[in-house]
């Protein structure tokens, strides 16, 4: 232990791992109070609402839940610290025969897919101009932006030499799928920030001290004017890397189980990302409706479900045609882990939600709609990505990898930071439309 303490890196990382969450919480709280003091008009009303909602009676169950969450997140932060002190081998079950694990298979692969709501909703409202969905766009973009930050965080923990993460930006490798994914994820994260910037500016522009010194008001107007360019850019970038996450596994024809290995993996990844973009918007709307005790645009969400059912049907047909064309069906009826998990993925994650979304009487039931959306998220996409990057490879490598408890805790920790960031952003920024207020554009 003494040796570790001697590293300056130890103290830096320790300070950061405690400092970042604390600064995050304190900063957000401070900003909110400051805004409450300085702002005028509508913002004062908003600030009053914040002040009023803070002192509330907390049930013991909720206190316990929060304490448990804090415990897990502190443990996760410590594990990340250990990883940077002793190497990936100290905390993961990874080995040379199974070099990419849960952090890539779930945090990165599913993380990117589950953030697809950002480009899907932005395209629906601003490109296809189905403007009744407008209230859902900002939360979707926020989810996507935070999702990508989490993906990058997970990647930095997983990379052996994270300080070299910028190198793909300099050494262009047209033939590397991973290079293309890296470039797109980096660029798209910036695009998402630009797409979300107006939300921040709307609040910032209420502070006279800022607007007097900085050109944030003209910036806001300019962003509003050119936003469509960034939205189109976002759709193109998303299409590229959502699909390319599938292409990543095209290089292992002899390793990946034939139920998943296909040259059309990129097409499947893109289709399922679009479907889960809608499903994730339903899930995220329900979650934030509970957290903020606000109404739910139920008729809009049902419509999203309807669209998702069409996308799921196309995806299902494509998968079935592909498996038929490659003659891989016999492999789906073998007594193997892969066959079992394939059917769970298809039945629970694709076919069931497709039906639930398609039948009008079912999707109008809020609970059914919410449940079906979760099915797509958990089984249709998260399990699919794990099947491709983990379970589908085990038939070749043998049963040599399953995530260690520490890998799982780190994943939960990063998710926890993401949810916390979403909560704070949604609370202090105009992410959700004011209830009953007029639309601004």
């Amino acid at each position: 232990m003494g040796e570790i303490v001697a590293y300056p890196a130890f103290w830096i990382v320790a300070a950061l791992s405690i400092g970042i969450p604390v600064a995050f919480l304190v900063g957000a709280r401070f900003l909110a109070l400051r805004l409450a003091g300085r702002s005028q008009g509508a913002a004062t009303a908003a600030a009053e609402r914040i002040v009023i909602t803070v002192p509330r009676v907390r049930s013991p169950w909720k206190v316990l839940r929060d304490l448990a969450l804090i415990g897990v997140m502190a443990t996760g932060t410590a594990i990340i610290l250990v990883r940077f002190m002793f190497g990936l081998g100290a905390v993961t079950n990874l080995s040379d025969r199974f070099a990419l694990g849960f952090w890539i298979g779930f945090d990165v692969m599913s993380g990117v897919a589950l953030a697809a709501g950002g480009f899907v909703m932005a395209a629906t409202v601003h490109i296809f101009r189905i403007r009744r969905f407008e209230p859902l766009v900002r939360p979707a973009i926020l989810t996507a932006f935070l999702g990508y930050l989490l993906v990058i965080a997970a990647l930095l923990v997983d990379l052996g030499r994270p300080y070299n993460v910028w190198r793909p930006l300099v050494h262009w490798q047209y033939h590397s799928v991973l290079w293309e994914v890296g470039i797109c994820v980096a660029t798209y994260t910036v695009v998402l920030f630009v797409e979300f910037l107006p939300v921040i500016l709307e609040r910032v522009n209420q502070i006279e001290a800022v607007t007097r010194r900085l050109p944030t008001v003209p910036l806001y107007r300019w962003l509003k004017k050119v936003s469509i360019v960034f939205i189109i850019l976002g759709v193109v970038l998303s299409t590229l890397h959502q699909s390319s996450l599938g292409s990543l596994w095209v290089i292992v024809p002899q390793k990946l189980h034939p139920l998943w290995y296909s040259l059309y993996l990129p097409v499947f990844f893109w289709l399922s990302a679009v479907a889960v973009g809608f499903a994730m918007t339903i899930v995220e709307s329900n979650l934030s409706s509970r957290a903020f005790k606000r109404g739910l645009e139920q008729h809009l969400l049902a419509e999203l479900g309807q669209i998702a059912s069409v996308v799921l049907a196309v995806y299902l047909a494509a998968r079935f045609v592909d498996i038929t064309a490659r003659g891989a069906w016999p492999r789906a009826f073998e007594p193997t882990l892969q066959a079992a998990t394939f059917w769970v993925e298809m039945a629970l994650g694709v076919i069931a939600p497709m039906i639930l979304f398609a039948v009008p009487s079912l999707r109008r039931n809020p609970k059914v709609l919410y449940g079906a959306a979760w099915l797509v998220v958990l089984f249709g996409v998260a399990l699919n990505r794990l099947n491709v990057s983990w379970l589908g490879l085990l038939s070749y490598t043998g049963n040599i990898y399953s995530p260690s408890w520490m890998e799982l805790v780190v994943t939960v920790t990063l998710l926890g930071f993401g949810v916390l960031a979403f909560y704070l952003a949604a609370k202090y920024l105009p992410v959700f439309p004011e209830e009953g207020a007029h639309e601004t554009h």
Partner: protein
Amino acid sequence: MDDLDKARISRRDFLKSLGLGAAAAAAASLLPETTALAAEAPAGPTWGMLIDLTRCTGCNSCALACKEANGLPQIPGKVPAALEADTYTFVEAFQVANLRGEIVTRYVKRQCMHCLEAACVSACPAAAMHSSGEGPVIYRASRCLGCRYCEVACPFAIPRFNWDNSITPTINKCWMCYERLKEGEEPACVAACPTGAIRFGRRDDLLAQAHARIASHPDRYVDHVFGESEVGGTSVLYLSDVPFDRLGFPANLPLVAPPKQTEKILYKLPYVIFGMAAFMTGTALYTHRKPAVAVPVEADAATDAPDKEE
């Protein structure tokens, strides 16, 4: 393989059916047709090694010479038993039946195969894995992100990672003693081999030699030079009197280099970029057009929408 071929033929149609129109194709044709590739098969003659398993006595001189030449740590009195981060080559022993059904002991020297079109090179996002163009596939740590995608991509499970190194782990594998090659020397393992089981030279010459040996002793050798066409060809070639799948050589390897598959997909991306951008821009222009009639119905619906909330 048949599946792959079939799938490839129809991919163009498949992508077309995704709605990427003629405009996209026209726009994409403005781009250079192909980009020069680090992963492409080297054009000129390249270096290689021919390992004749019938001549190997399992003396381990090669493995120890490798440790010496590359400054890798050794455990006194012990010979390497597996590829490790500090072991680039080792000799694996097998008790197997040969073609005549006799049980024999055979020794297989394992190391990086130095694929002509290496999957690791094609996979690497920062050109840390690099094809020297002369045969050896080399690794440049200074560029490496430590993403380990090369380990996933490698069809022979060769690269090794320093799992216990906190922030400066590297990928470790045989580099065919590229520095020695440049100075006109043979790789250390070749120089150390007392029986001539490992030959070093131009890959073309070695391949011809291998086939000549098979032709002159058809009763002794399996009629197959491993590495001649596996994964598009490797710089390291093997001759054997025991079928290769009994000696731990991967059996289901594609004869097409794996990078060929991904590159075909990657080279479709310009069409996807221009197609998607054109489609989205076109749609946006259409939906944002100035209405011919004064008030669009759509706008009213949008203004009403928030009122419908509970």
